[in-house]
Every structure is written in C-alpha cells, then in structure tokens.
C-alpha cells in the first residue's frame, strides 16, 4: 500500500516534468502580461530552481499536508479546495453506477449461465459484445438526441433545472434524479457488459463443481442449488472485478461529465487540461489514482470478509 502510494507520487511527479522546458513556461508564455518577476515568482513557487530530488521531497512534504498548490486559473484558489467541492458529485455518480452495474449485471450473468444457449443467453451475449465496443460518448450523444431533443423526456445538461430554487424539496429531488438518469446510465454501461460476461463465465464454472453435484444428489431443489450454493460462490470473484473496474469508471467521468455539463471532478479535469491549469491537472491525477487504490483496498478487504477461506494473517 505505502510503496504503491509512493510510486504513484513518483509517476505524477515524472509526468509533471514531462513538458519540454520549464512547466511554468506554459503559464507565462500563454499570458502576454507575464513579467520576468512573475516568472521568477512561479519558478520559486514550484522550486524549479532547485535539484530534482529536492523538488520531489518538498512537493511530497506539501502533499502530506494536503497542499496541492494554487490553481493557475483566474480564481487562484487552492487546488485541494477546487477538487474537494467537486469530488462528492463524481463519487456519488460513480457509486450509483457501481450499484446499477451490480443490480443489473449479476442477474443477467446468472440467468445466462443457468439457461445456457437459450434465446435470452444469445441475446445477452450479443448485447455484451456490442456493449464492449460502443464508444460511451457516442451512446451519450444518441441518448441525448433521442430522450432530450426528439422526445424531450429528460434534461441533457447540468444537474439542476433553471427553476430549481423555486421547487419544493420533493420536486428538487425529482429534478436532480431526472438530471442524473442519463449520466449514470452512460457511466454504468461499460461496466455492465464486463461484469455480466464475467458472472456468466463464473457461474458456468461453479455449476460444474462437485459440490453442486452433491447438492443436487441430496435432493435440493434447483432453486436452492442455484441461488444458495452456486450463486454465493460465483459472486465472490466478482468483487475483484468490481474493484478492477473502478479506474475505468473514474476515468470515464471525464467524458460523461463533460458531455452532460456536470460540475464534478471529471469536468474540472477536462477544463484544467484545456486551460493547461497544471497544478489542478496534477492534483486530480493524484486523487484519481488514490481513489483507485482505496477502491481496490476495499475490494480486497470485502473479499477477505466474504470468503471464509481467506484469513488475513
């Protein structure tokens, strides 16, 4: 865990120094008003006049205090503040997506496996195959055209309607939910294909095991065999897959938050990349990696909790 965390900071630091010339050049060259004094201030602010090992250590020290630097954008706010105020939205959407992925993909995978080669199984395997290949941003566009422009059922931009302030609390919640439907669906879509395919393969594997034969032999109903004995064992490895899907979800938030104009961390990342707001880009890159690490840790721990064969020693 700790070596991984250190490694992440090293890679981030390396990416930071990837730019040709001094990274602050980007800021000063883009700004015709920048003076020599401002350049010097920026240089000393990032300690770019010192050796690289010193730079890394002092950057790490600041990081340990939660200091990610000051944004290059015109508001000059601390990067950590900018990220923190947008992080909850991104986490909520990703969490909802994960929930939907589990609730939808697990039954699909199980039913496909139990009724192998049935019509349902075939339709679902086509769906899964196409799901792997669909560019999610294109799907988002099609959904926007269909549900937003053609039928006018759902809002396609932002999190709140213009009249949000004048709605009752209940109406506000409905409004928020309506704004969230398309983004959450798009964000969940990719993971849906992955997990249901994985669940199917897992379930097929489990059904062939001896203990399923034993369960059948001692006269348990098919329902009990499948949902009690097989499903539990097939679900276990799925936890790992969910953990592995977290970086994809977080990375995808850039795309859907930009398309649907959702003020989350992904949109901030995109805007920062476009504006070359370099401290913010680094901050979000770091947070994204740490979130992934935490997600994987949670997956590992819950695996150990769920599977009595694994004991943390």
């Amino acid at each position: 865990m700790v070596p991984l965390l250190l490694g992440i900071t090293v890679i981030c630091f390396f990416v930071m120094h990837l730019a040709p010339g001094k990274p602050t050049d980007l800021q000063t060259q883009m700004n015709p008003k920048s003076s020599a004094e401002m350049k010097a201030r920026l240089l000393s602010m990032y300690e770019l006049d010192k050796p690289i090992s010193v730079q890394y250590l002092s950057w790490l020290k600041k990081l340990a205090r939660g200091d990610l630097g000051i944004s290059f954008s015109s508001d000059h706010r601390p990067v950590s503040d900018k990220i923190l105020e947008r992080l909850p939205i991104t986490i909520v959407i990703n969490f909802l997506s994960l929930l939907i992925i589990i609730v939808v993909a697990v039954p699909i995978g199980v039913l496909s496996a139990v009724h192998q080669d049935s019509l349902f199984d075939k339709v679902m395997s086509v769906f899964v195959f196409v799901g792997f290949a669909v560019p999610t941003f294109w799907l988002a566009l099609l959904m926007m055209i269909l549900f937003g422009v053609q039928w006018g059922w759902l809002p396609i931009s932002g999190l709140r309607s213009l009249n949000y302030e004048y709605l009752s609390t209940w109406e506000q919640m409905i409004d928020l939910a309506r704004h969230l439907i398309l983004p959450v669906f798009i964000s969940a879509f990719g993971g849906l294909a992955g997990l249901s395919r994985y669940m199917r393969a897992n379930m097929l594997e489990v059904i062939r095991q001896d203990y399923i034969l034993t369960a059948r032999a001692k006269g348990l109903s098919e329902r009990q065999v499948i949902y009690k004995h097989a499903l539990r064992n097939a679900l276990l490895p799925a936890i790992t897959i969910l953990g592995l899907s977290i970086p994809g979800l977080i990375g995808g938030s850039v795309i859907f938050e930009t398309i649907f104009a959702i003020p989350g961390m992904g949109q901030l990342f995109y805007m920062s990349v476009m504006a070359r707001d370099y401290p913010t880009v680094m901050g979000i890159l770091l947070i994204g990696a740490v979130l992934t690490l935490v997600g994987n840790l949670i997956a590992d721990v819950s695996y150990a909790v769920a599977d009595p064969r694994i004991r943390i020693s």
Partner: protein
Amino acid sequence: MGFWEMFYKNKLTLAGSGIVVLLFVVSILAPVISPYDPGAIDLQNVLAPPSAGHWFGTDQLGRDVMSRMIWGARISLKVGFVATGLAIFIGMILGAVAGFYGGWIDALIMRFVDIMLCFPTFFLILAVIAFLEPSIWNIMIVIGLTGWMGVTRLVRADFISLRERDFVRAARAIGASDARIIFLHILPNALASILVAATLGIAGAILTESALSFLGIGVQPPTPSWGNILTAGKDNIDIAWWLSLYPGLAILITVVGYNLLGEGIRDASDPRLKR
C-alpha cells in the same frame, strides 16, 4: 483440428476478419473511393441531411461526411497500429525480462505495473496531453505508453510457465545466450497470446483516440477523424443527427471487428478448446 480449420469454422471470426480487411481496403483506397475532397468547404450546402449527393449528409462547413469518414478510417488504422505496436513492444520486453529472470527484477517490474494500473488510464493520457501539443503522433505515443501493462502480465505468465521446460534447458545446455533463448526459443511460444492482446489492443486504442478527438484533445481539425466529426455532431445535436450517428457506427463496427478477430484467434489457438 488445426489452427486454420478452427479459424475458418467460426463464422463470427470470419466476419471480424472481413471487417478488418474492409477497413484496410477503404484506408488504402481513400483517395480513389471518397466521393468528395474531405476538406472541400461548401458554404452553400451547410448541414445538409443525407441525400443522393451526400449519402451521410454534410457538416457545419458543408464538407461531405462520408468522405471525411473514409479519410478518418486511415487515422483510426494508423493510431490503432502504432499505439498498439508500441504497447506490445514495451509489454513484451518487460514481461519477457520479468518472467525469464524472476527475482528482484521481476518484483521491480511487476510493482511498476501495479503502480501504473492505479492510474485511471484516461486521466493519465489527458494529463500527459495537457503538457504536450495534441497531435496525432503524441496521441499514438501516449496511448501506447499507457497501454502496455496487460501485455506485460500476459507475457510474464507465459515465460514463467515456459522457462523450465525441456526445450529451454536444452537450449541452455548447448550454450545459447539469454537473449537467444528469450527471443528465439520462448517468445515464439507466447506469440499467440500476444497476437490476441494486440488485436484487442487495437480496438481499445481506436476507442481511446476517438474519445480524445471527440473531447478536442486528439486529432486536430481540419484532419478528419471519427472522433472529431462527432464533436461537430454534439455542437449541432438538435439539428444534425447524421453527424452523430454515422461516425459512431463506424467506430462501433470497427471495434466489433477487431474484437471478433481477437477472440477468434484466442479460441483457435487455445489448446483446451481443440477436440
């Protein structure tokens, strides 16, 4: 059943190869078959819906969408192959070294893989692009540099299972150098899984490039790419559905093609599936 028999038997695999071959043909013949000059602006004919003259309609500058998509196929092909080639090259070398030598070299390389896998790939790509000029070459290199981890794991696993085999011992006994054993004796046995990873990797690279171009940080206009035609689709979402529909379909079909081909090669080369 041999490899080719297995390959031919599967209709889906054949369909996949058909799509891939078609894409090659379209890319190579782009100057011949594209009905219009992909850059020809026609302001009299802006955002025209699909018609006999323009099968897929025209974009916000009156350019023929079909011609731009045909030329966009070239970009996809180029990005897919170069980016994946780079990823496979890095992954092959690191995986071979890690699997062959084991010990601390293996531990070091695999730790590096773990660290790289912590980064949401799309974040990493965007961050790097933020510091470089978005150009097609930079995109290809960055996609390649962030996509080698899976290949490394794959090749390493193959090397670990192969390095103690008799043919490797025999090669060592007659005094073959490490490099010779790695590249001439072990690597050819791992080629099937590398080929599968490469085919699926091309699909992934094409998806990533289109997403980047869609966001405006990939292939830059006026060079046509499927992703940046879709950007125009988003800008004109309430009037020009054809700008959104067709390029996305092209990406979908292409990715399906490479995925089918990849899975076909996997099934055909998997000895457990042979009867």
